């Protein structure tokens, strides 16, 4: 005859089966299979290279991004900053400005004895993103092809991720009241196009790169040039690689 003690033991052993049962109920059925698409996530790992020496600060990327993604005016998924870094013995902080995110380019602003250049910025699609770590509802996530995206239907608009992003790349969409950010034009790159900002960049300062493609020029770019990411000390796994970046850039 079984004792109560033994029965509880058996029940406890059966607990082990819970995941199996869950897996059974969760098994993919044909109903929720995604629409047939040729895009295979496992074959890509997206990144971008930016050549500071080529950027002319025209703002084409900012306008292109806003057109492509219906970014509300005054908010930016990508923008361009102008750095005016003083030559050595002078003050140690560079002067940085970005009038209207460079939507209309930059008016001339001369600064003597300074190194002036443009720095395009956008989401770094971090491989270990702080924004993903702080989301309380799991609305923002890292995809298998190396992007950080937001599930608009899950986002609460709590702004934790806006604060967590070390690069200031997120904003709360004024109408949807959920967080919005650069998607690397996921709707374009998954169709074989390049992102809108890369498409309209006249000088090739920006290039979309696929690190899993052995033929991609990014590999030569990374090997042959001194390349940096922004805020490397934060170990975010940023995947926007800058060439010829001045040490004053943060």
């Amino acid at each position, binding site marked *: 005859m079984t004792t109560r003690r033994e029965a509880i033991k058996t029940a406890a052993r059966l607990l082990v089966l819970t995941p199996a049962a869950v897996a059974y109920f969760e098994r993919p059925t044909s109903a929720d299979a995604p629409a047939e698409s040729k895009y295979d996530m496992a074959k890509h790992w997206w990144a971008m290279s930016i050549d500071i020496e080529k950027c002319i600060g025209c703002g084409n990327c900012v306008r292109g991004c806003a057109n492509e993604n219906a970014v509300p005016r005054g908010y930016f998924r990508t923008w361009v900053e102008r750095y005016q870094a003083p030559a050595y013995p002078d003050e140690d902080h560079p002067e940085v400005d970005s009038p209207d995110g460079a939507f209309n380019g930059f008016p001339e602003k001369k600064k003597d004895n300074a190194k*002036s250049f443009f720095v395009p910025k956008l989401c770094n699609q971090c491989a270990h993103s702080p924004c993903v770590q702080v989301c309380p509802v799991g609305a923002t996530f890292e995809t298998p092809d190396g992007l950080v995206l937001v599930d608009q239907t899950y986002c609460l608009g709590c702004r934790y991720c806006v604060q967590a992003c070390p690069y200031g790349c997120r904003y709360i969409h004024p109408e949807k009241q959920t967080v919005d950010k650069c998607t690397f034009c996921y709707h374009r790159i998954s169709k074989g196009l390049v992102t809108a900002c890369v*498409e309209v960049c006249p000088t090739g300062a920006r290039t979309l790169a696929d690190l899993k493609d052995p033929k991609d020029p990014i590999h030569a770019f990374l090997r042959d040039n001194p390349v940096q990411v922004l805020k490397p000390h934060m170990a975010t796994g940023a995947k926007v690689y800058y060439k010829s970046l001045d040490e004053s850039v943060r």
Partner: protein
Amino acid sequence: MKEAVHLVRLAALFAAGFVAFLVIRQMVVPAGFGKYGHFRAGALDDIRARPISYAGHGTCEACHDDQHNVLAKGKHAQVSCEACHGPQNRHAEEPDKVKPVLPDTRVLCASCHESNSAKPKKFPQVVASDHSGGEPCKSCHVPHNPKLSTEKGQ
């Protein structure tokens, strides 16, 4: 058999709890969750479903090889069509219905070539007001191949 009753009650309670767990889980976990990671797989399709507005220069070149041939020979070879003409996917899909508005060269050319001390030194720059004095750039330059137009050839 007093003890057996205890056991049955306990088992029933356990089973009920387990069923409740499964039912609630089924209800609250969205379809496709966990398929690719700790997120709803459908979110990817939502984001991918967005329509494009820039068709890409490959699309333009398929119909406009005249312009492409001119462009490819000049200094603007690396500038894509839509960098100057704006988003034209709707035109590319229905060229008869949607006709692009041609850009005003006074504004367009200056947006890239207006001189600025932060621009790379090797990029060709002009102070538009001195250089053309308000005349449209296209009266001297051919936009698709910015060398000077032959009629005006100075």
